[in-house]
């Protein structure tokens, strides 16, 4: 009896001791070495390598490695090498927070890139902001991510801009008057569907139905059967590859014959094009990677990535890659300390990147670039159009 209590007390004391060690410990973590040296510059990175978004985690991790390799091969940052500090967040916000803390206080990174989804990035953003270490979100769309302050940027279109672009495509390129919306039920699908609806209705269009589903849904026959009766001109589906591919396949099987418009979420060669197969033909998407671009940066990226990964790159990879290129550009031009990097990013103008010409970042940290419109043709994404209209592509700054 006595020994039992002693053991349990010991465990309590150890556990609490461990917790209290946190109260006292640390402190000296963020001392940075002087600028005049040749030590590598560390850039932090986190992505959902394990867990339900592992496919994206894999793509972006490859892209991050490729980008760092590329930067180092082309002379590094004014002679200094770049080192990648990469972690897996398991798609859990709590882990993203401890990673952000680790990156900012232990690892001494000067900047970071989030290759993760919205809720993880959203939870980590304030930590980078408070630590005054710039962070670029590669493809997380939650509108609040950039709102905390000056140090957080976004490399893909904020949801509102892309939703608007989708509606622009629907109205002007696909000539749709009525639309049925099928969106994945998270911040990504919701923001896109909301802003699509707003713009589409303001141009006189009508949304005949809107249905949502979880990321892991596979069965769309019930809802597609319903949509078939409504006979809309278009189905807008802001969702990811797994679900998008099932919608494409089941729509074809049900003989729906309705044009479909997707988003960057299904810009995936492996998961979307291969699974959907021939049924994907004719689907149009809004994205930020134009495979037929004449830009050298784009073509080099596609070639290098395909060689490294043994498959064609998708949008999340391209966007992640560009985050590093933007950081490198800012560091080369403005200096490799966190504050200078931040200022450097704001100074970027018309920078040639894999996802097109980056026109610049607004005061929230949102990127301005052209929205690419692609169409699936013979099992591959092909050029369909490009939206340059400033009204559409300019991100909100509030």
């Amino acid at each position, binding site marked *: 009896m006595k*020994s039992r209590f002693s*053991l349990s007390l010991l465990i309590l004391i150890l556990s609490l001791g461990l917790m209290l060690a946190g*109260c006292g410990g640390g402190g000296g973590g963020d001392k940075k070495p002087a600028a005049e040296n040749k030590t590598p510059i560390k850039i932090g990175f986190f992505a959902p390598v394990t867990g339900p978004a592992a496919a994206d985690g894999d793509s972006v991790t490859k892209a991050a490695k490729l980008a760092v390799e590329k930067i180092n091969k082309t002379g590094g940052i004014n002679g200094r090498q770049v080192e990648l500090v990469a972690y897996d967040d398991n798609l859990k916000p709590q882990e993203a927070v*401890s*990673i952000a803390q680790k990156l900012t206080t232990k690892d001494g990174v000067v900047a970071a890139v989030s290759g993760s989804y919205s*809720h993880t990035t*959203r939870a980590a953003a304030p930590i980078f902001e408070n630590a005054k270490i710039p962070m670029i979100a590669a493809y997380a769309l939650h509108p609040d991510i950039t709102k905390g302050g000056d140090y957080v940027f976004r490399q893909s279109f904020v949801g509102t801009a892309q939703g608007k672009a989708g509606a622009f495509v629907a109205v002007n390129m696909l000539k749709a008057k009525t639309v049925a919306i099928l969106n994945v039920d998270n911040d990504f699908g919701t923001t896109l569907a909301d802003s699509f609806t707003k713009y589409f209705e303001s141009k006189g269009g009508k949304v005949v139905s809107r249905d949502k589903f979880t990321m892991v849904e596979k069965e769309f026959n019930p809802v597609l059967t319903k949509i078939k009766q409504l006979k809309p001109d278009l189905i807008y589906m802001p969702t990811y590859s797994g679900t998008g591919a099932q919608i494409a396949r089941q729509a074809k099987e049900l003989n729906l014959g309705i044009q479909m418009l997707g988003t960057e979420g299904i810009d995936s060669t492996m998961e979307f094009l291969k699974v959907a197969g021939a049924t994907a033909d004719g689907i149009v998407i809004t994205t930020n990677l134009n495979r037929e671009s004449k830009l050298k940066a784009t073509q080099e990226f596609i070639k290098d990535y395909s060689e490294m990964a043994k498959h064609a790159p998708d949008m999340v990879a391209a966007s992640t890659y560009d985050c590093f290129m933007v950081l490198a550009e800012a560091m080369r031009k403005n200096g490799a300390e966190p504050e200078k990097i931040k200022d450097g990013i704001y100074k970027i103008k018309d920078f040639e990147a894999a996802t097109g010409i980056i026109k610049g970042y607004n005061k929230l940290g949102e990127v301005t670039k052209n929205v690419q419109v692609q169409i699936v043709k013979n099992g591959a994404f092909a050029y369909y159009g490009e939206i340059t209209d400033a009204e559409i592509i300019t991100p909100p700054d509030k």
Partner: protein
Amino acid sequence: MYEQVVAINIGLAMLLAMSLNIITGFAGQPTLGHAAFYGIGAYTSALLTAKAGWPFLLALPAAGLVAAVVGVLLGLFSVRVREDFLAVTTIGINFVVVAIFQYVELFGASLGLAVPKPVLFGLRFGNTEILILLVILNILVYLFIRHLPTSWLGLALGGVRNEEDAAASLGVNPDHYKVFAFGIGTFIAGMTGSVYAHFMGFISSSDFAFPVSVGVLSMAVLGGLGTVSGPLLGAVILTLSPEVFRFVSDYRMLVYGGLLVLMMRFQPQGLIGDDSFLRRKWIGLFSRGKGGE
């Protein structure tokens, strides 16, 4: 600081594991949906402070209370159904609660909720203050659990856990005690959720999904269900292991899953349960020190 964040994660996990231990370890009622109550606490506290302007110190117990009310309802349900039915029903509760957070506009729906950092007497809560609060809560809950085995409540729960009929024959109303255990356990989980929300500053429904419940149950079982401090040990191990194994990034979950299987296979009573390796060693040490008893 990184150490603080890890310590906070451990502190949250310890509270959750201890609260689950009251329901599953002491009262013997299986729960696979504990994260639902954690989430109810988090959302309650977030709404009360952000939208109703309550001070954090009031929102904290309120979060526990709201979670406990739902917990009592679940307890009332639990007295109707058999063990395994209950286990799966608690999974169901978890899904339904998360679904409500995900679908109802008031809870921020799919965009989640921003949660203000607490301010107490002009002091804005940073990680240090959160950590101190967690240490206090952990000590309080630990003292309660340590008191349990030598209290009437602990004896009654032990009776209900072992032989419901025999407990009833001693005048113990099994239903009341089950519901009571659910109430206490979910109250603690709700308070923990409140701390979590204010620590993170942002919550979304998936923070409280089914895998979180599984994680909490794993901690308690790993350490030893029904033991006083086993769940603490389980919480420390399972919270630290992803951090420690972060360097083997790619194999992290493989190691985690494998660890669970091996521990269950070879220490099924939990790390400090009866006849476990640790306990045998400990008792050995102890009796040698005292010259045997």
